[in-house]
């Protein structure tokens, strides 16, 4: 597996983590009503979407590099 393939796996897991953190922080906000939790939750959800876009651009830009 090349660095390209490993990077795509890593970014996929990072996207999952971003959404998990976002949901976890929203739950904390629901119980504590601290604005900081809501702000960071939104940041993580946006980061998750950003990582999806980044992953797509990596696939496009590195298409000439092998997965092996």
């Amino acid at each position: 597996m090349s660095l390209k393939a490993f990077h795509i796996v890593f970014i996929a897991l990072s996207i999952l983590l971003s959404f998990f953190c976002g949901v976890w922080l929203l739950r904390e906000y629901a119980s504590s009503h601290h604005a900081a939790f809501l702000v960071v939750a939104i940041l993580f959800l946006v980061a998750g979407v950003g990582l999806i876009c980044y992953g797509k651009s990596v696939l496009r830009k590195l298409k000439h590099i092998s997965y092996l």
Partner: protein
Amino acid sequence: MSLINQNPSHMEIPYAVKPRPDTGLYNAKVGIWLFLASEVMLFGALFCSYILMRVNAPEGTWPHHWLNIWMGMTNTIVLIFSSVTVVLSWASLKMGQFKRYKFYQSITILCALAFLGIKSFEYHDKFIHYQVNLKDGRIFDGHLQSAASTTNQFVFKGRFIDKPEELYNPPLEHAEEPPITIAKSDIKIDPTTKQPMMENYGPWHNTYLAIYFTMTGLHALHVIAGCIVIFAIWGPLAKVWEQDPERYVNRVEVSGLFWHFVDLVWIFLFPVLYLL
């Protein structure tokens, strides 16, 4: 044709740069994946230990919210960003842009140092965090501000615990606590050790902190190792790029694979230790 040149001064290890026909990979890549497989077993064993200890802990005794999630989240972002710069540096080299590679890889090194800086701050926070058992039966939990040896007094910032459950599950966010002075004479004496019952949140404090320091400490050692390798390729070994560019690109790829593994371990460590 012989794979090894018969002249000892020109002996060359085969497939160090070009891929082997049978595996389709150059030797270093096969080597790093075998090494990473052994690393998976090492960290896998620690994750299994964590799960077993947590599942078998008596109800209400497994700590929550003991770690600073904001620092953990910052470190997560730093490591994800560093994996992006590693790939960008490798892709730059593939396109022959050596200056770009140097730039991106220097950011990776800075990210590694930032991660270690934040981690050491977290460790320091745990080493000045104390649980104090008082003679009147109360428990105090807080951060040591100063200890005056002449007056035998300690100044903490923290709170008195009414119920033991509060010790294991403190609120995630709480108001600024005022300084509290505790005299050494007010602290309960351990009947076996004859020492005051006042212990910091080091790895000896309980099972949770023991596994926390073991896993994050081992991970931090990997970050240090990765940082040294990336720096060595970036700095002292950069002349290989002019002599044998393909070999240099392969070295960057192999170090990048190791770095991604280190980042991947953190992607699992963070939610397991900080959030769940």
